[in-house]
């Protein structure tokens, strides 16, 4: 009997926080994702204007042309909060580490045609600098984005981009037999080689964009949306003819990451487009501008890797992205206007 009395006495007086209950109902226990990411960002009564931008409040929805009635519609389908994010990525990293060990122990890189191995070093390793730029872009979104939901996911994506740059760097060490020669050479190509300059210019140009949602579209939708399929799909396929499988094992991290990240990117873009005609027009405008520039910037690299097949691969990537964006309520021309 005594136990019954106790159990009866210990009744929760509420299921979750009030700000969560206002969104999802008072009787429903909230998920950890919801409690971690909804409505934590301050929204009102800021004390001082930023000395670097007094026209804005410290957190200000006017930092982008995109307008939302509610900024908490950018639900991450992966429901990442810090713990689930890190546990997920630790597992991905473990798979990568296993692949590196497997390849190194058996010296599988030695079995890849020398010419293809050099070509991979040629296109893959400079991409770590693209990741570095992407990292900075994600930090800008985490800095100036609006709402806990988008900023925490952007911060995770930023950490991913640092990690991706390091994964590519590690592949560079494998390709260089443990030395940094390949990384040094790749940086030199990034800085000087003609075929890399349009892409470097594009990346640097993104770093002066101040509308965080435009940065989101330019980097995460457009550049990633064209570059990743090119590298992890078209280039890998070309490698198959050169016994490139061991390298594909190493770049598997990139493939898996891109599939995972795209789920979040699609959800965000879809929600922004669904909000209003005005948003759609702004998004389509950014897609046009950055889409044209990204395709141009990637063309010389595709040409370098695939030769005559380069333009077709770019066109295929554009078509894929176009289909994807169409499903999200946006329009992205399959082919560039002449």
């Amino acid at each position, binding site marked *: 009997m005594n136990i019954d009395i106790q159990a009866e006495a210990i009744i929760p007086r509420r299921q979750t926080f009030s700000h969560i209950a206002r969104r999802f109902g008072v009787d429903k226990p909230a998920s950890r994702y919801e409690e971690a990411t909804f409505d934590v960002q301050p929204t009102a009564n800021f004390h001082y204007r930023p*000395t670097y931008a007094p026209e804005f409040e410290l957190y200000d929805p006017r930092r982008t042309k995109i307008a939302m009635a509610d900024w908490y519609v950018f639900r991450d389908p992966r429901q990442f909060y810090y713990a689930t994010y890190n546990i997920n990525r630790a597992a991905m990293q473990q798979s990568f580490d296993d692949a590196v060990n497997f390849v190194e122990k058996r010296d599988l890189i030695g079995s890849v045609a020398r010419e293809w191995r050099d070509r991979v070093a040629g296109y893959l390793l400079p991409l770590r600098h693209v990741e570095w730029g992407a990292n900075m872009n994600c930090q800008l979104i985490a800095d100036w984005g609006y709402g806990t939901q988008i900023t925490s996911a952007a911060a995770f994506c930023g950490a991913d981009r640092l990690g991706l740059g390091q994964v590519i760097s590690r592949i560079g060490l494998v390709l260089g037999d443990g030395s940094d020669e390949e990384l040094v050479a790749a940086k030199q190509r990034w800085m000087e080689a003609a075929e890399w300059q349009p892409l470097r210019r594009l990346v640097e140009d993104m770093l002066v964009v101040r509308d965080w949602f435009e940065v989101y579209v330019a980097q995460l939708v457009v550049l990633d949306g064209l570059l990743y399929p090119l590298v992890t799909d078209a280039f890998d396929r070309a490698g198959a003819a050169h016994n490139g499988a061991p390298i594909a094992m190493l770049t598997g991290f990139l493939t898996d990451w891109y599939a995972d990240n795209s789920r979040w990117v699609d959800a965000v873009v879809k929600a922004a487009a669904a909000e209003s005609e005005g948003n759609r027009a702004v998004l389509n405008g950014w897609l046009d501008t950055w889409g044209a520039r990204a395709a141009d910037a990637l063309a010389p690299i595709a040409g370098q890797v695939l030769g005559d097949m380069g333009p077709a691969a770019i066109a295929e990537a554009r078509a894929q992205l176009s289909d994807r964006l169409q499903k999200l309520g946006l329009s992205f021309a399959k082919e560039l206007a002449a």
Partner: protein
Amino acid sequence: MVARKLSLKQKYGHFTRGMDWEPSYQAKEDIFPFASYEGIKIHDWDAWEDPFKLTMDAYWKFQAEKERKLYAVIDSMAQNNGQLGITDARYLNAVKLFIQGVTPLEYQAHRHFAHLARHLPGAGLRVAAQMQSIDELRHCQTQIHTISHYNKFFDGIHDFAHMHDRLWYLSVPKSFFDDATSAGPFEFLTAISFSFEYVLTNLLFVPFMSGAAYNGDMATVTFGFSAQSDESRHMTLGLEAIRFILEQDEANVPIVQRWIDKWFWRGYRLLSLVGMMMDYMLPKKVMSWAEAWESYYEEAGGALFADLARYGIREPKYADVAKAEKGHLTHQAWTIFYNYTHAAAIHTWDVDDQHLAWLREKYPETFEQIYQPRYLKWREQAAEGKRFYNNGLPQLCQVCQIPMVFTEVGDPDTISFRVSEHEGDKYHTCSDGCRDIFDHEPVKYAQAWLPVHQIFQGNCGGATLPEVLDWYHINQGADNMDYAGSPEEAQWDKWMEGRRPPLAVAAE
């Protein structure tokens, strides 16, 4: 076959700053426009030495493992009614203050370290800043998840983020952090990484964690311990950043000294709330505020500033005042909350005899003479059914935003009133420290959103107290008022009743 293995340092170099490059299509000052306006001169960003060489692979691995351990404890706490293990329901008021006042700051730290991770021109510092950015997000989220369980049973926790933006005493931590995030990147580093994380953070976390441990709050101990392993990295960043800035150019020294003076005082005033929590809200005591101040500031800080003397940095201005006030600070802060418990989302209560004895022992020169009579008078009034609540709204300090309760050094009967004039208006401050801060940047501090003034401007839901409390989302009669007679007290007593040994029940 790995013939030319790189050292950890070389590898880390390639894996971080090696990915950075000198831009040529855009000007560096357009990519990093905020790097020079504070007057700090950096000649060589590469001189920054990364104290920890943590790459993302290790970061994910270690953090994932820490999180697995932490969430196992949080789960077990929820499954086993861990709230029954605390010493007393009064303890929970420390947790309430923490989630209302500190947890939102963790989120804001996440945002602003992302700001540094984007806008500092040095690649090494950017990497350190972004790890701290996600660490801070971690602390925010793990605190929410831990305290979520208490929220199911206790009051005052349920709308912490809404309250943080509005409630009068929460403008103290909010304005502190807004002050830092509205400043330039170097002042923020000095304010948060150095002055707060390195110099003062032990005063927040160590007493809070040990307090939680002594009072049966195992969930908070676990997140505190787990967070502390990140804090070690953050503290190191703070110390190395300050050294780096000071070593870069002599002209940086006076600028940094002024920031250290300012942020020491800002942080110290903020900690008066923590000190009150230590001295008044922990049923089982760890150490007094005065003891903590002596060991964590006077000893550790003294050694630190002796080391920084080589750069021409001296101890923060008014550290002597903080030392002189340590026997008064927490009692004056408790007086505020006792006065205004009807408008707060925490409880206060009559300080019982056992607790009075502890305070007399810890504060032999001040407590019995000055503060005990005050509490005994309140006790008498409460016994007559007239629990003392202040009907007026307090005068607030324009800078720290704490009600103007602090007294003159050496004269505990007289409030320290300071006033400045700016553009024809008066601005009141609580101390020389806060007045100096105002006088240096009046254009900034004249903007302050002072909760009491906002109420009188009609911006807080209405002209009556119940309307304002509604606007705060305070559940009246539950979140606020004295602990005696609160639903929380009734619940706790019922639980404790249920835990009586079966024999006693049978005997009835």
